[in-house]
C-alpha cells in the first residue's frame, strides 16, 4: 500500500512536498539522524534538521523561523507555543520520554557539574528538579556550569573540563555512568511533538510525524535509550485517537451525504419519472462506482482533481491529499447507493397524486416539494443513511486520492488499516467495533424508515 501512496504522491506532486524542516531538541539528534535516511529513501522527501535547546528553538519558531515540525524536549516549551497559537494543536503528541544519568564522577565528589542551563533548557530544568528532590541543590548549585544545551554538558565531561554532568540517558554512549536516576525518582520527562501552524509543508510534517510515532520509529528511539510516554499520552489522543479519527470520518461522511443530496435527488427523480435520450447511459455511469475497483475510481479522481488535473487545475483550492479529497471519494462512492434508494422512493410515489395536484393549479416545483418529495421522504432518508454508512466505510478511493495523513485525512477505515499494519490489533479491533456499531445503526434505521413507508396508506 505504501507503494500506492508513493505512486499517488508522484502523480500529484505538491510543490513543497520535497522537504520537511524539523526543529528538534538536541537530545533527539542521534536517533533522528538514524531515522531520517530511512524515511527519505522511502518517500523521496528530504528531512532538514535544526537541532538545539528546546527553549531556543521555541523562541525561534515564535519569531517565525521556517519550521514545519517541532520536536521539543519538554511540555512547557510546547505549551508556550500552543498558547500563542503557533502549533497545530490537534497534532500535538507525546510518545517519548527519557531518564537522567550522571556521567563522570559522583555528584558528591565532583568539583564542577555541567548542566544544560537550568534556568531555561529542559535537560537542565529536569536535572535541577531531580537534584532538588533529593535535597542536594544547595550543595551543588555553586558548582554548576551551565551549557547551551545538553550535548554541551556531555561534551564538557568528555573533554575533561568538568568533573560530571547530568544528562539524558539517551545522550550517553560510552561515557562512564556514575548513577542512573530511576524513572520513579526523576521528574517526568516528556517529548511533545507538534506540527507548526502555518508550516510551509504541513502535509509533509504530518506524514513525518506519523512516521516518528510509528512502531518502527519507536524501536529506534528505544535503542537510543528513550522510553515510552509517561502520561497516557495527552495529545497522542487527538493525533491518532479514536475520537480524532471518528471526528474526521463523521464530519466528512456527513458533508458527503449533504453534497450528494441535491444532485442525487435530481438524477433519481429524472430516472424515476421520465424517459429521455441517454437515460441508460446515465444509469450505467451512476452505477459504475458500485462495481468498479475503488482503487481505480480513486486513480481516476486523482487524475481529475490533482493540481494539474482536468478539473483540479480550475479549482482555487487543493483537493488531493486534503479533507476535500476524503469528502470527494465518499461522494463518488456513495452517490450510486443514494440514487438507487431515492429512485425507488420516487417510483413508489403514485403519479396520480402529482396529477391531481396539477389539476389543482400547482406548478411543477410546488408539486415536487409538497407532494413528491414528502411522499418519497422515507425512502430518501433511508438512502441518505445508506450513503452515509457507505461513506464511513470508504477505503480504496480515499487512500489514493486523500492519502492517509494522520489527523487530517485518516478516516476510520484508514486508521484500522494503519493499526493492523503496525500490529496494534487491540486498537484496530476497537475501531472495528465502532465501525460495526455505526454500520448496524445506519442500516437498521434505514430499514426501519422503509418498513414504515410500506405500511398501508388506508386504514
Amino acid at each position, binding site marked *: 500500500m505504501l507503494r500506492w501512496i508513493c505512486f499517488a504522491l508522484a502523480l500529484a506532486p505538491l510543490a513543497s512536498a520535497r522537504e520537511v524542516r524539523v526543529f528538534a531538541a538536541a537530545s533527539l539528534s542521534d536517533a533522528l539522524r538514524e531515522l531520517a535516511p530511512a524515511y527519505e529513501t522511502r518517500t523521496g522527501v528530504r528531512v532538514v534538521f535544526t537541532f538545539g535547546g528546546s527553549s531556543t528553538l521555541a523562541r525561534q519558531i515564535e519569531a517565525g523561523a521556517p519550521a514545519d515540525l517541532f520536536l521539543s524536549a519538554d511540555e512547557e516549551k510546547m505549551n508556550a507555543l500552543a498558547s500563542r497559537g503557533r502549533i497545530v494543536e490537534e497534532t500535538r503528541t507525546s510518545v517519548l520520554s527519557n531518564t537522567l544519568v550522571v556521567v563522570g564522577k559522583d555528584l558528591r565528589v565532583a568539583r564542577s557539574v555541567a548542566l544544560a542551563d537550568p534556568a531555561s533548557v529542559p535537560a537542565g530544568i529536569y536535572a535541577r528538579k531531580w537534584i532538588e528532590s533529593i535535597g542536594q541543590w544547595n550543595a551543588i548549585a555553586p558548582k554548576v556550569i551551565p551549557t547551551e544545551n545538553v550535548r554541551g554538558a556531555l561534551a564538557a565531561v568528555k573533554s575533561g573540563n568538568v568533573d560530571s554532568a547530568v544528562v539524558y540517558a539517551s545522550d550517553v554512549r560510552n561515557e562512564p555512568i556514575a548513577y542512573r536516576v530511576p524513572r520513579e525518582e526523576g521528574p517526568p520527562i516528556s517529548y511533545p511533538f507538534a506540527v507548526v501552524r502555518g508550516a510551509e509543508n504541513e502535509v509533509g510534517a504530518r506524514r513525518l510525524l506519523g512516521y516518528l510515532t510509528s512502531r518502527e520509529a519507536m524501536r529506534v528511539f528505544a535503542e537510543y535509550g528513550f522510553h515510552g510516554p509517561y502520561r497516557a499520552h495527552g495529545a497522542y489522543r487527538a493525533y491518532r485517537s479514536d475520537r480524532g479519527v471518528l471526528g474526521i470520518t463523521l464530519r466528512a461522511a456527513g458533508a458527503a451525504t449533504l453534497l450528494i443530496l441535491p444532485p442525487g435527488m435530481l438524477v433519481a427523480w429524472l430516472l424515476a419519472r421520465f424517459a429521455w435520450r441517454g437515460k441508460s447511459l446515465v444509469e450505467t455511469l451512476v452505477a459504475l462506482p458500485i462495481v468498479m475497483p475503488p482503487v481505480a475510481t480513486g486513480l481516476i479522481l486523482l487524475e481529475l482533481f490533482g493540481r494539474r488535473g482536468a478539473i483540479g487545475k480550475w479549482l482555487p483550492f487543493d483537493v488531493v491529499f486534503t479533507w476535500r479529497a476524503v469528502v470527494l471519494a465518499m461522494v463518488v462512492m456513495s452517490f450510486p447507493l443514494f440514487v438507487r434508494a431515492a429512485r425507488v422512493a420516487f417510483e413508489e410515489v403514485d403519479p396520480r*397524486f402529482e396529477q391531481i395536484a*396539477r*389539476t389543482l393549479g400547482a406548478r411543477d416545483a410546488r408539486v415536487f416539494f409538497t407532494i413528491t418529495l414528502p*411522499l418519497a421522504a422515507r425512502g430518501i432518508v433511508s438512502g441518505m443513511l445508506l450513503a452515509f454508512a457507505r461513506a464511513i466505510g470508504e477505503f480504496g478511493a480515499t487512500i489514493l486520492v486523500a492519502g492517509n495523513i494522520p489527523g487530517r485525512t485518516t478516516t476510520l477505515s484508514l486508521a484500522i488499516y494503519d493499526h493492523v499494519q503496525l500490529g496494534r490489533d487491540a486498537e484496530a479491533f476497537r475501531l472495528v467495533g465502532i465501525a460495526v456499531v455505526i454500520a448496524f445503526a445506519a442500516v437498521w434505521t434505514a430499514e426501519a424508515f422503509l418498513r414504515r413507508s410500506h405500511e398501508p*396508506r388506508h386504514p
Partner: protein
Amino acid sequence: MSLAIRDVVLPLAPFTLEVSLELHARSTALYGASGAGKTSLLEVIAGLRRPVAGRVELNGRVVSDETVFVPPRERHVGYVPQDDALFPHLSVRQNIFYGAKTKAHHGIIDILEVGPLLDRGVKRLSGGERKRVALARAVLSEPEILLLDEPLTGVDLALRDRVLEYLARIRDELAIPMIYVTHQMDEVRVMCEEVVVMERGKVVETIHSEHA
C-alpha cells in the same frame, strides 16, 4: 359550460378511444360498462393524457390539439378520481386548501359539511368523508368544470343519497357544471340532464334526460 371534443383519438390497451362530443348541459353523465374508456376520456379533458389526434375545447378555448396542449394546472378543471387520491401525508385542511385561491370559502365547507374534519389526518376518514373532502378540494380550486369519476364508489349504501345531495348542491348552489362518470343508471337519473353512453372507446348514444 361548453365542452367540445372533436375526433379525439387515444390508443388504449384493448381498443382505441375515438370520441366526438359536444356538451352544453349543467350535468352530463358518461355512462358505460367498466373499461369503456370513460375514465380515459375524463383524463383527456383534464389534460392528464394527451390524445394523438383531435381537439378539445373548453368554454371556447382550445386546450388540446396538434399544436396546443394546455397543461392541467391551467385548464381550471376539478378532477375527483374514483379513489379520491387524497394526499396521504397532509391533513384534511391541507388537502382541501391545496388548490384554493383564498382561504375564505366557508360556504363550500358548510355545504359539504367538512368543517369538523379539518384537523384530522386523511387516513382516519370514512369512505363518505373522503369523498366530501375530495369534492371540497376540487371545488375550492374554483374550477370551470368538475370531473367526477364514479363518485359513489367506496361510499356506504346508506350514505349514497347524502353524497348525491351534496353533488346536487354543488351543481345548483355553486353553479359548477359537472361530468359524472358512472356505470349505474339510477345515479344517472338523479343527477344528470344529459347521458352519453360509451362502449369500447366510442360514444354509442347521447340521451337528453327528462330530469333536471
